[in-house]
């Protein structure tokens, strides 16, 4: 039957193919145009975490810090070697012997990206703004009520009411221009946090020049940067919500590097030509935290047996951390031990093997047997000899933390082997927050991360933090004393000893189990740029996290800007063109045949 529908269908199909061809035709030209970026040297980075804010007083997630670290300097930076203090806007700071006054030497002739001079006054302004306006992210870097004096543009004097090593920690506070931020000083926190800074004015090597939320953000070279001129002209970040697609884009050459891969994708990039995988030394840890109860307003009574160190030791001994590393993180992690992560290599204690609790279900069972935790009713679950209560635990596990839920599933099995029943409760971070705040759990699996300096990480385990940042209200006066001692110890070597002692003590007391130190995963094309700088050390982050050294040393390899999806080959064009022409001819012929019928 000669039908108009057929004609319309055929025309539509033809049009679709034409659109496809046109679009694909554009693919080649568009991609080559996009990757060449004219004569500019452009690095393209794929990220999973979108930029949440361009405001340094509201930073909270990964990409926020990446941008802020590239755009702004700190007074002192972090060394790429071991994350200790390194020259930033200041070349260094000297103390007065009693550690109450520090004199910092600011580099001369500094300029902001808009050409305005950058002096010690900008640094003092930033610090005062943080303190006076109680900026949550930064205010803890200023203990002992410090005041700041600026006798000249290259000198900042930091005076504290008690001895402090705060200036040399160094404070992770991005220095902002006074001439831009002065109007917001004294406003409420909501106003300060909502000031948009695109395009920004900073002192770092790259300035955020454009940002389309959910899509991309671009950083452009700062012409007034005080250090060596980077080879890169621009860094373009593309936001991907699909990890597989991001890997595909890297393989296609649409992007040069990716940040934040899931461990399950390691096999997709390993042994791929021209792609290198960076397993970044961990700066966070997966934590099984026990709840000791005592949170204000909590109506839940956590398992009393958890107050017994033997039970906690048995749990730690029953958990196969190596299996968690292999099965959950595909080997992209190391087994956990202390609450100071390995990235802070100067402070981290590697627990000596003779002081470790090695994985041994039989030892764990023996510990519980000896302590009288027997399975009196033969239901496979031990009972507490004091209360007769079965050893059953509610363990929420964060589904937003890589590997937490999967590790939880393994732990259910490990604890079953020693007669402890686990009710695993997978929960989003929002729900985890509820469990944590209400104390409605026996243990939970979540994560911790922190500054390179261990002070804060130790602080959250002190007794006073119950109801604030403590996981499960572990309260131990000996640990509190160790924290205080290291907090006031000004001699760095002695402090290092105290920090390590605190770690060993915490490990022995098992207020929780540090399950693993998962690696952060980055990947990059080896045929595009060379000169990636890890922080800390060769196994550290390649993309700016603690400092921007990578941006200063990256250099293109030959023609930087080849690549991109390669587009449709010529023979496909030919076939497609023939098909379209064929369809048009058929449709026209049918149209002519239909005409008399319609008359």
């Amino acid at each position: 039957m000669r039908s108009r529908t057929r004609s319309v269908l055929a025309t539509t199909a033809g049009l679709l193919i034409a659109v496809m061809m046109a679009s694909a035709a554009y693919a080649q030209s568009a991609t080559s145009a996009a990757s060449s970026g004219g004569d500019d040297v452009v690095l393209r980075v794929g990220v999973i975490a979108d930029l949440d804010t361009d405001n340094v007083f509201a930073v909270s997630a990964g990409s926020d810090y990446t941008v802020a670290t590239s755009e702004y300097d700190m007074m002192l930076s972090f060394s790429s070697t071991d994350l200790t203090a390194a020259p930033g806007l200041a070349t260094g700071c000297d103390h007065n012997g009693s550690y109450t006054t520090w004199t910092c030497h600011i580099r001369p002739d500094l300029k902001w990206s808009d050409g305005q001079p950058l002096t010690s006054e900008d640094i003092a302004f930033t610090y005062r703004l943080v303190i006076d306006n109680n900026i949550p992210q930064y205010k803890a870097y200023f203990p002992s009520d410090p005041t700041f004096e600026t006798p000249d543009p290259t000198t900042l004097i930091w005076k504290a009411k008690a001895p402090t090593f705060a200036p040399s920690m160094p404070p992770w506070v991005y220095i902002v221009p006074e001439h831009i931020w002065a109007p917001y000083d004294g406003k409420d926190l909501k106003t300060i946090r909502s000031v948009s800074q695109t395009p920004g004015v900073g002192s770092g090597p790259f300035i955020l020049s454009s940002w389309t939320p959910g899509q991309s953000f671009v950083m452009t070279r700062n012409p007034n940067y005080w250090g060596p001129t980077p080879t890169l002209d621009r860094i373009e970040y593309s936001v991907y919500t699909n990890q597989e697609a991001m890997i595909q884009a890297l393989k296609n050459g649409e992007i040069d590097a990716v940040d934040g891969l899931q461990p399950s994708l390691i096999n997709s990039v390993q042994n791929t030509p021209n792609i290198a995988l960076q397993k970044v030394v961990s700066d966070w840890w997966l934590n099984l935290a026990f709840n000791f109860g005592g949170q204000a307003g909590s109506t839940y009574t956590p398992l009393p047996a958890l107050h017994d160190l033997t039970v906690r030791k048995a749990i730690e001994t029953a958990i196969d951390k190596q299996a968690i590393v292999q099965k959950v993180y595909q080997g992209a992690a190391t087994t956990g031990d202390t609450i100071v992560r390995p990235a802070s290599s100067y402070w981290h204690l590697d627990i000596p093997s003779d002081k470790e609790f090695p994985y041994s279900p039989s030892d764990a069972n023996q510990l519980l047997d000896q302590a009288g935790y027997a399975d009196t009713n033969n239901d496979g679950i031990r009972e507490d000899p004091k209360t007769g209560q079965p050893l059953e635990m509610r363990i929420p596990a964060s589904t937003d933390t890589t590997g937490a839920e999967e590790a939880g599933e393994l732990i259910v099995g490990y604890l079953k082997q020693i007669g402890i029943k686990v009710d695993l409760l997978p929960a989003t971070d929002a729900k985890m927050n509820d469990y944590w705040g209400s104390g409605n759990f026996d243990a939970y699996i979540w994560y911790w991360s922190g500054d390179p300096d261990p002070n804060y990480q130790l602080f959250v385990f002190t007794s006073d933090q119950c109801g604030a940042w403590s996981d499960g209200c572990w309260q131990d006066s000996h640990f509190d004393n160790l924290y205080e001692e290291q907090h006031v110890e000004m001699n760095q070597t002695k402090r290092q000893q105290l920090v390590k002692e605190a770690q060993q003590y915490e490990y022995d007391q098992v207020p929780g189990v540090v399950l693993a130190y998962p690696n952060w995963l980055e990947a990059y094309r080896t045929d595009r740029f060379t000169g990636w700088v890890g922080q800390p050390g060769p196994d550290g982050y390649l993309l700016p996290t603690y400092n921007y050294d990578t941006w200063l040393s990256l250099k293109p390899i030959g023609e930087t800007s080849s690549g991109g999806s390669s587009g449709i080959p010529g023979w496909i064009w030919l076939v497609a063109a023939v098909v379209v022409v064929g369809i048009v001819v058929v449709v026209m012929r049918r149209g002519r045949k239909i005409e008399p019928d319609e008359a």
Partner: protein
Amino acid sequence: MGSRRYLLSKCLQAVVTLWFVLTFNFFLFRVLPGDPIGLLARSEHFTPEDVARLRHDQGLDLPMAEQYVVYLKDIATGNLGESLRTGIPVNELIGSRMRPTVLLVGLGTILASWLGVLIGIRGGWRRGSRFDTTSQYSSLVLYAMPEGWLGMLLLLFFSGWLHWFPAGGYASADETGVAYLVDLLDHLFLPLLTLTLGYIGGYAIVMRSSMIDTINEDFVHTARAKGVPDRLVRRKHVVPNAFLPSFTLIILSFGFVLGGAIVIETVYSWPGLGLLTYNAINTKDYPVIQGVFLIASAAVILANLVADITYGYLDPRIKQA
């Protein structure tokens, strides 16, 4: 008079539905577990006082009833608030995500409904033919296929294996003018193809069944008995009557455009409203969730209203009922 009453009652129903949706959205997100501010402040150095301060800034420390009044007042003045996470006004966020979504889902709906209806007409008219059998099975397969899976297959094939199209994203940031348009089309192709294929089956199936029902109506037999040519029977008698269910489906689908296509937008990293919703739900960003739901619900209610009114005119029996 009858028409006016019909119109008024439909408009009133729409307003009441909108109010219900607004109220439901407000309470739903507040009774769900999880504290958005606590989540936001789960970062170093935030003290409980800081958390309380942030909660106060957002008005979340007010009694629920008071929050509700503020919420209604704000919406009445077009103020959807600011994102808890980013501080960006929700109006601005939704505005920036609307274009990609309308482009992808709008265009996908047009293409899928157009092609689907054409396939349904042809299949239904020539029931049992090779075209009908093939199109029916294809429609069922496409209709049943999860969009995310189809998206991944197309992505792996066209981008991963053939390298013809980019693996995701929107247009490149540094393009302008024609180059931007070209780049946009390049990025649009795969998600649009996925969405069109994913939606086409539904339209084809509905139109085909409707055609088959209508073909057996008495007035069609009468037309044929009068000697009206087959082509005209189909065009003038069958299709206009059989199109009514598809018309409703299409209008309602356009209402859903502003809800975005969460799965496809996620697979292709397409920065639309669906993705915004997904991220906002994950981070419990109340103002954003409320804003997106409000826009999406209002669009569906409006589309429903348009369908009701148009239907009334297309089929006068409905107005009289």
